[in-house]
């Protein structure tokens, strides 16, 4: 890996100036490297982070089987990584005009990394530096503990998709004034709801009473409030004292739970494993926002590389070359999904809608098609609005909020279905639906969504760990359950149970077999418990 030459760097600096003028904001420094095929081979398993810790699985090709990207939605071939300063990678034989386009694209990503709030937790440190020190920790441990280090990495990685990313973010955004006293928390969160089980109306009355007290007495408000409450519930103080210290812990992810509660990991001889779990967890949380903003991020970068390239005066004469490459990147595929194309068009659409003042209740209320077509308040707020979108949303919200029927119609989008023509043994692709609702559903189904699996402390008996998989109409990949649980059992040091749902396909009925759809049976769901005890998996139905 070597830095780009001075000539190319000068082009990059020129791009930065123009991007800033257009409103993008990012740190001054950035590093650009030329990578060879060989570098790419080494970098791609490490998600392009050159300093990521070594792990043997990186030397093996991870199985490229069915649905690989649905399971491992991390594309290893990104050009830019979210570090301080940001680092980007290039081919060594790109012509200048192409570099200009890529630079703008990269700057779009950097702006996104540094302004989208889902990345908030990555803003205050340099991940490559962090990763380097982690890598050294692991290397040192490996020298001492040998291959057991790799087992612990493996087991920690096997649950690294269950990290509570949103919880981590929530802490960063809770304003200090939202904190209230432990007593108040107990009273409203536990006492009234769990112990007294008072109706909602009563509860709201209490909240109002608290607000009134606060307003009337200021500093002394809380005291006044509790004087009344204690009169009504004399037992309150005693209950509160009893629960002191056992305040319900905030929702934790499995990795954090193991770190805090596992007795096995707390043993002196195993304490080193904790640092590995911490590293794996930190790494996973670092990458989480990237997976959840793929369309947004690529759309934003594509939107800006187009806008800025066309305004750039330095590369006149390459419009046709640009058009060809740009179209290749951002054309809507006949069938299939392209995050660049979809995101870019949606940003354009949102900007245009906001410009006309259509992102408003006034417009949404309109039913008349021609009125809708002509609606234009000419607010000129479009540019501001897309910057807001880039700052505040993730893929899910972006699509949910703005992918509407107007957008579908404008770009002639449809949900493409696939069915089997048995006579000719071919798959037929056909237009299944042009409804925005169906399109939404189709695309939401493909978004990254790890299972929600949390520890159910109420069911953890005899030191066993009880995991609860929240049912969302999906089952877990069954062949992976056993080995994943072997890892959890190892880290927990005692038997582990997993409550989950399983699909049972009923055979297709005669009527559905005669339709032209591929035969699909009805699904019934069953709740089952998998138990891992001494590396032996057993399964029982509830």
């Amino acid at each position, binding site marked *: 890996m070597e830095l780009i030459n001075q000539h190319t760097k000068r082009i990059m600096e020129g791009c930065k100036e123009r991007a800033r003028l257009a409103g993008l904001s990012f740190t001054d420094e950035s590093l650009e490297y030329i990578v060879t095929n060989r570098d790419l081979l080494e970098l791609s398993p490490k998600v392009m982070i050159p300093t990521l810790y070594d792990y043997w699985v990186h030397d093996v090709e991870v199985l490229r089987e069915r649905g690989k990207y649905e399971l491992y939605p991390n594309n290893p071939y990104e*050009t830019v990584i979210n570090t301080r300063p940001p680092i980007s990678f290039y081919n060594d034989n790109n012509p200048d005009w192409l570099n200009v386009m890529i630079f703008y694209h990269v700057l779009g990503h950097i702006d996104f990394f540094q302004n989208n709030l889902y990345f908030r937790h990555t803003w205050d440190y340099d991940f490559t530096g962090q990763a380097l020190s982690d890598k050294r920790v692991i290397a040192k441990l490996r020298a001492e503990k040998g*291959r057991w280090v790799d087992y612990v990495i493996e087991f920690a990685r096997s*649950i690294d998709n269950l990290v509570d990313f949103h919880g981590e973010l929530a802490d960063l955004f809770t304003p200090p004034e939202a904190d209230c006293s432990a007593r108040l928390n107990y009273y409203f969160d536990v006492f009234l709801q769990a112990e007294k089980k008072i109706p909602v109306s009563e509860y709201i009355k209490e909240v109002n009473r608290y607000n009134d007290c606060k307003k009337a007495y200021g500093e002394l408000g809380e005291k006044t409030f509790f004087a009344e409450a204690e009169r009504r519930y004399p037992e309150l103080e005693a209950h509160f004292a009893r629960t002191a210290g056992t305040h319900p812990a905030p929702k934790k992810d499995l990795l954090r739970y193991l770190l805090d509660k596992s007795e096995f990991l707390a043993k002196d001889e195993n304490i080193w494993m904790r640092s590995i779990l911490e590293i794996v967890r930190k790494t996973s949380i670092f990458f989480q926002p990237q997976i959840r903003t793929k369309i947004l991020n690529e759309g934003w970068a594509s939107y800006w590389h187009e806008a800025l390239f066309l305004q750039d005066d330095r590369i006149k004469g390459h419009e046709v070359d640009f058009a060809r490459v740009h179209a290749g990147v951002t054309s809507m595929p006949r069938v299939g999904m*392209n995050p660049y194309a979809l995101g870019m068009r949606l940003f354009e659409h949102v900007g245009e809608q906001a410009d006309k003042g259509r992102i408003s209740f006034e417009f949404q209320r309109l039913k008349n098609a021609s009125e809708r077509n002509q609606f234009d308040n000419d607010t000129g707020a479009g540019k501001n609005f897309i910057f807001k979108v880039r700052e505040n949303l993730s893929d899910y919200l972006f699509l949910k909020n703005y992918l509407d029927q107007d957008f579908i119609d404008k770009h002639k989008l449809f949900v493409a*279905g696939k069915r089997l023509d048995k006579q000719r043994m071919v798959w037929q692709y*056909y237009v299944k639906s042009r409804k925005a609702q169906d399109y939404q559903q189709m695309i939401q189904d493909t978004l990254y969504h790890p299972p929600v699996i949390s520890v159910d402390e109420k069911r953890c008996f005899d030191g066993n760990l009880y995991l609860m998989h929240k049912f969302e109409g999906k089952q877990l990949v069954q062949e*992976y359950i056993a080995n994943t649980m072997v890892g959890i059992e190892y880290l927990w040091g005692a038997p582990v149970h997993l409550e989950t749902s399983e699909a049972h396909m009923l055979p297709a009925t005669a009527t559905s077999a005669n339709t032209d759809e591929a035969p699909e049976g009805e*699904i019934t769901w069953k709740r089952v418990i998998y138990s891992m005890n001494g590396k032996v998996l057993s399964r029982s139905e509830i």
Partner: protein
Amino acid sequence: MKNDLLTYLEKLKESGLDTDLEARLQKELVSSGKCHEPPNRDMPCDPALAVAGQSLYSSGDMLVLSQASKPYLYGTGLAKSLDELLERDRLREQDGFPRKIQVGKLIKPGRGRKGKIVVVPTTVEEKFFHDPTIRPPGEGGNSGGTGDEKEGEVIGEQPVREDDGQDGSGPGEGGGGNHEMESSAYDLGKTLSEKFQLPNLKDKGKKRSFTRYTYDLTDKNRGFGQVLDKKATLRKIVETNIALGNLPDVSEIDTSQFLISPHDKVYRVLSREKDYEPQAMLFFLRDYSGSMVGKVTDLVVSQHVMIYSWLLYQYGGQAETRFILHDTEAREVPDFYTYYNSRVAGGTQVSSAYKLVNEIVERENLTKDYNIYVFQGTDGDDWDESGSKALPELEKILTYASRVGVTIAEHGQGETTTVVRYLNSSGLLKKMPELLRMDVMQKDADETRLIEGIKKLIS
């Protein structure tokens, strides 16, 4: 042909046939007449549909924007680390954790005789993932698209490749033949290569091998070389000295008077000798009748892939292979590709395949020059209930074959299958265990079981 089968079925019925079996036969009959052609891979693929199944997450800037090509994994680089990785895997087992490395793509059957072995270690990072293949009916398999067509209009077609397995016309095995196999298969391949050879290999019609050489100290050279041949050298010295007159009296030899010329020293030199090897001819027989739908074909084909790839590995060009497919009629197919990919349909007559083997052997007079091996895979169904047609043919094969290995992948309906029954009752298995082996497995057998099977068949 269908009518012939019908009359045959009627005949069977007359001679008494239980209803269960009849139903099965009827079912096979329905599928007869359907074509066995392997799925046509040459059908042009609409480029617009090439990205149809692609996920949102599969495109990255490096490839899309800079139009870089995906870094290519070199086989040699991988092979170096393979043993190291397998050693790691072995240690895992020792430490009490399941093995994790798979050795994939052992063989890539191509058209013609181009069998290619590529060994790539692969692994899975197992986590709790949602299974994308389980969806409520009517959902899923969908993708996005753009265009002007109305709802319901077909926009493109693609030949069926993988994941089909529809009744009556499923291919034997999908995919381009990237057959993932457990690392134990590789281990086995190695062990087999080191320890085992084809059983009962006799010296028949040795042909000169052009690929193998042995190196031996057979050639002699005077003056210089690798190893001094003392006896020959001494003889030369004596000869020379007699000629010189240094040896007047044979009864009293004074060796100190000898003159030793450098030219008298005889050396042995290392030389390359062409090797001769016995020839082997292997017949692969596969039942591709209608009842072979799904997993059973999978098993049989997988096992034959393993045997075939091991052969390629071990014997290079020396072992010749023939492929025979049969339903009620047998036919020989030219290459492993067709053998591997032909679809199942039709009824079952095991005897037809045996007969074809006998015909080929006789016609080409193979017994003279070749060691003959027959590997047969079936689900055990045969319309020939008693084996009255199959057994005589099989006995004929056994007169010349070095080994017949029968793999039976049962559907697991409880009862013993027809082929197992008549093979057992014939007593052939007991009479000549050296020549005839049978391996019966259930359809849920896994890779390890298959390997066990191979050991049984060829050990």
